[in-house]
């Protein structure tokens, strides 16, 4: 499976993500520069963490106007797999590929710590290998991760089961105490209606090797790779069929 990691000025998890995909998971992985128009035939676009454009204006607000993002948007509209991690999630929200917006963390602190997230929906290309209800221990590192959506949008998201991860305690209880940044409904990760675009605040690439203290994040990438392999063995095209967009 071919992955593309997008680089914006200010991305700082690009090489961590590249390492996890290329060295740890042994996948064909390329870097994609934000000023280009070529997605280089990748099967999955990954928007990595960092501070694209210094978080000026709003997190992710300027990166969305990069030339490459036009291609990413078109790719997603056709059902292509897109994964946004942390700042990548913020870019996807600003781009309108995912519903809602990010506010500053409720305690106004930059949070850099391990958290637990519970898999709320395992019937997605990103969590197929995880199993519903599984609790993952993955680090976060962000200032603006306090997820917000207007009440009507939030109700729709919940009804369509677009919430993929929620902040929980180690036992998987979704509590207020576990909701580190104040996100509505403890939302840590969210997908679009078509199920081909996922954004999450925790960093799976930083939890992909035992050396890093947790290997729980690897299951996201393994889900994508396994799903891709089974689609291919069924003789289907490498990309899912046209998805409804958000």
């Amino acid at each position, binding site marked *: 499976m071919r992955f593309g990691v997008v680089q914006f000025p200010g991305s700082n998890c690009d090489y961590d993500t590249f390492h996890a995909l290329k060295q740890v998971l042994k996948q064909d992985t390329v870097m994609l520069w934000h000023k280009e128009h070529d997605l280089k035939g990748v099967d999955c676009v990954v928007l990595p963490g960092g501070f694209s454009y210094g978080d000026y*204006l*709003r997190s992710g*607000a300027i990166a969305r106007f990069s030339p490459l993002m036009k291609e990413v948007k078109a790719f997603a509209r056709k059902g292509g797999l897109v994964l946004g991690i942390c700042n990548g999630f913020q870019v996807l929200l*600003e781009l309108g590929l995912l519903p*809602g*917006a990010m*506010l*500053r*963390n*409720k*305690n*106004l602190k930059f949070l850099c710590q391990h958290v637990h997230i519970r898999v709320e929906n395992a019937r997605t290309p990103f969590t197929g290998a995880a199993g519903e209800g599984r609790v993952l221990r993955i680090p976060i590192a962000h200032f603006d991760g*306090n997820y*917000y*959506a*207007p009440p009507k949008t939030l109700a729709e998201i919940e009804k369509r089961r677009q919430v993929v991860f929620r902040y929980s305690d180690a036992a998987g209880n979704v509590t207020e105490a576990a909701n580190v940044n*104040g996100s509505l409904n403890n939302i840590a990760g969210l997908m679009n209606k078509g199920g081909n675009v996922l954004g999450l605040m925790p960093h799976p690439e930083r939890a992909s090797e035992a050396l890093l203290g947790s290997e729980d994040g690897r299951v996201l990438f393994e889900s994508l790779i396994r799903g891709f392999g089974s689609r291919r063995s069924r003789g289907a095209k490498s990309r899912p069929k046209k998805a409804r967009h958000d």
Partner: protein
Amino acid sequence: MRVRILVSFKDSVLDPQGQAVKNALHTMGYGAVKDVRQGKTFELELDRLTKKDAEALVAEVAHKVLANPIIEKYTWEYIKTPRGK
């Protein structure tokens, strides 16, 4: 011509920074301050445009870029251009 655009959170959205400022003011004894909402200011220098075109441009720029309409609202006004410009 010059315009000033003020972007702030919608009333329905919690503004944790504004809350922190309010709490600080209360701690300092300014109990008369009922609420604080924090926002951003942008000053745009524009080409000479008709009023109608200026209004359309400001609305578009504010909606598309300067504010995130999901969480923010904006107001704007014409301001004086500094001398020599």
